C-alpha cells in the first residue's frame, strides 16, 4: 500500500512555532510533515489524500479505477454536465481547489468519513450522495444526477477514495476542514470590499463578477451573476465566502490578504445578485424568514443594500435552469421514524 495512504494524529507543541513561519511553510507545502505543520492545532486529524498517480499505482480493481477516474473528471470538469445537471459556469473544483484534496479549501474527503450525519441546512440525516446532491442544487444552480446513477456513484467513489486510510467518524477535529474564516477586526464594509475586489480580484473575475471564458472555454469562475452559485449555496454566507477568500485567493497565494480584506470582499461579492434560492416560496421575506435559522441568517439574502436600496434576492430569476426544480430540495426523509 502506498505510504500516501495514511493519516496522522498530530500532537504538536503549539508554543514552539510562530504563526508567520507557519504561513510560509503552509504555502510551500500544503501537506507538510507533522513536525513542519506549524499552523495545525493540537490533536487534529491530518489526512493526506492519495493523488491520481497513486490511483494508477494502486492495487484497486481496474473497473474501480475507471470509475474513480470518471469521478475525478466530473469533479474537475463538471461543465461536461452543463445543461443536464449543471446550469451555471462552475466546476466542483472551482471552490474545492486542488481536486478537492487541499486543506482549507473544503477538502471533500472529509464528507466521506463524517457522513451519514445530521445536517442543519435540511434538518435531517444526510449521506454522501445527498450531500453531493445539495451542491448540484445550490452551488451548481442545477439539479442532481439520480442517487445511484453512474455520475453520482463515480463522484461518491472519488470522494471515498480520497479518504483512503482516514478513520470513519473521527474523534478529533479534521485539519483544514471547510473554509475557516479569519478574525473579523471590523464590521465588513461594502465600499472597502468593492475597492479591494477591484484591486485584487477583478483582473481574473472581472469588474462585473462575470468571470472569464476564453474561446468558449471556462477559465475563471463567476463570483456572482447567472454564471455563479445561487442564493442557497453555502458560499452565499458571508463567513464562508470570507474563509474561502482568505484561505485560497488570489489563486496561489493563500492567506495573502488580511482578514479584514477577506471579510470586506466577501461582503461585497455576497451583496450582488445571483440566481434565486431553489427553496424560494415566491416571497423573499418569507423565504429569508423560513430558512433564516438554518441558513440565511448568515447570508445577506432578503436584506436591503444600503447604497441603492436594492433588496437582495427579490426576483424570480433562477438563472439558466429556468423552471427546472431540483428534485432533492425539500424531499422529506425518515417520516416513518417516531418522534423521540
Amino acid at each position, binding site marked *: 500500500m502506498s505510504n500516501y495512504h495514511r493519516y496522522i494524529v498530530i500532537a504538536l507543541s503549539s508554543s514552539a512555532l510562530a504563526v508567520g513561519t507557519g504561513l510560509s511553510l503552509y*504555502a*510551500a*507545502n*500544503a*501537506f507538510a510533515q507533522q513536525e513542519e505543520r506549524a499552523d495545525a492545532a493540537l490533536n487534529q486529524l491530518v489526512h*493526506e489524500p492519495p*493523488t*491520481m498517480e497513486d490511483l494508477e499505482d494502486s492495487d484497486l480493481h481496474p473497473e474501480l479505477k475507471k470509475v474513480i477516474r470518471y469521478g475525478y473528471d466530473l469533479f*474537475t470538469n463538471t461543465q461536461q454536465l452543463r445543461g443536464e445537471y449543471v446550469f451555471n459556469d462552475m466546476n466542483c473544483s472551482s471552490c474545492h*481547489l*486542488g*481536486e478537492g*484534496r*487541499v486543506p482549507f479549501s473544503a477538502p471533500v474527503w472529509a464528507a466521506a468519513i463524517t457522513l451519514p450525519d445530521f445536517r442543519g441546512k435540511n434538518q435531517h440525516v444526510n449521506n454522501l450522495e445527498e450531500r453531493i446532491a445539495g451542491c448540484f442544487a445550490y452551488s451548481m444552480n442545477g439539479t442532481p444526477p439520480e442517487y445511484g446513477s453512474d455520475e453520482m456513484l463515480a463522484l461518491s467513489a472519488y470522494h471515498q477514495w480520497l479518504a483512503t486510510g482516514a478513520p470513519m467518524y473521527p474523534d478529533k477535529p479534521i485539519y483544514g476542514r471547510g473554509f475557516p474564516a479569519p478574525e473579523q477586526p471590523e464590521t465588513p464594509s461594502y465600499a472597502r470590499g468593492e475597492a479591494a475586489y477591484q484591486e*485584487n480580484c*477583478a*483582473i*481574473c473575475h*472581472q*469588474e*462585473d463578477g*462575470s468571470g*472569464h*471564458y*476564453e*474561446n468558449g*472555454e471556462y*477559465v*475563471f469562475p463567476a463570483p456572482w451573476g447567472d454564471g455563479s452559485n445561487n442564493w442557497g449555496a453555502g458560499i452565499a454566507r458571508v463567513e464562508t465566502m470570507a474563509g474561502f477568500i482568505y484561505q485560497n485567493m*488570489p*489563486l*496561489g*497565494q*493563500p492567506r*495573502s490578504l488580511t482578514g479584514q480584506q477577506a471579510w470586506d470582499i466577501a461582503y461585497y461579492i455576497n451583496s450582488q445578485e445571483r440566481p434565486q434560492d431553489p427553496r424560494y416560496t415566491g416571497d423573499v421575506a418569507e423565504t429569508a424568514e423560513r430558512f433564516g435559522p438554518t441558513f440565511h441568517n448568515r447570508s445577506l439574502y432578503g436584506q436591503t443594500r444600503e447604497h441603492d436600496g436594492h433588496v437582495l434576492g427579490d426576483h424570480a430569476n433562477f438563472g439558466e435552469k429556468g423552471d427546472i426544480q431540483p428534485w432533492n430540495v425539500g424531499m422529506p426523509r425518515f417520516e416513518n421514524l417516531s418522534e423521540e
Partner: protein
Amino acid sequence: MKTSMWGRLSLLMGACLMASGSIAQEGDAERGEAASATCVACHQANGGGMNIPGGESWPRLAGLNANYIAKQLHDFKAGDRQNATMVTFANMLDDQQIADVASYYSQLPATPGQGGDNADEALLARGQQLAERGDWNAYIVSCQSCHGPGGQGVGETFPGIAGQHAGYISAQLNAWKSDTRSNDPQNLMGAIAKRMSEEDIQAVSAWYATQPAAEGEATQ
C-alpha cells in the same frame, strides 16, 4: 469573449499605464511592420524568435496578444522588466511605435515552439501534469488555471505559453523564481514560480514548447 468588460479593463489598465508614464493606444500593424525592423535580428522576420540552448532564447512574438506585448515593451522602458538587450531596443520605440509593433506581431501566424523535442517521456509527462493539473502538494496551481485551456493565453494579462520556446519559458520562470522578473500582476506568477523545482521548470518548458500555440489575432 466579453468585449465590453475587456474594453473597460483595457481602460483601467490604460489608466495604470498612464500612471506609470506611458499611454495605451491603438496600434497600426502596417506601421508596425516598418518599425519591426529593429526587432527582426532576434525575433526574426516571421516573429518566430529562436530557442538557443545554453544561451538567451528569443521568444516567439507571432500571435501573442498585442496588449501583452505592448505592456512588456513599456515595462522594459520603465525598468519594471529587466533585460539588458531588450531595454536598448525598447528605448528606440516611442509609445505609438510600441502599439504598432505589438499590433503587427499579434497578427502574424504563430510558429512552432522549439526546445522540447529532446525531452524524455517522463519529463513531458511531468510537464503535462503541471500544465493541466498542477501539483497541489507543493501548492503549484496548474498553468492552465490562468493561461487558459491548452496554455493558449487569456486576454491581455495571461500570455499564451503553448508553442513558446522552452529556453525562453524556463528563463522567465527562473527569473520570477529569483525575483529578477516581477512585472506580473499581483505576484500571480512569482508566487508559483518560487515553488517550482528546477526539474518542474524544465518539464513545463519542454511540454509547452511541444504544444500548439493559439492562432494569431488575424486568424480569429
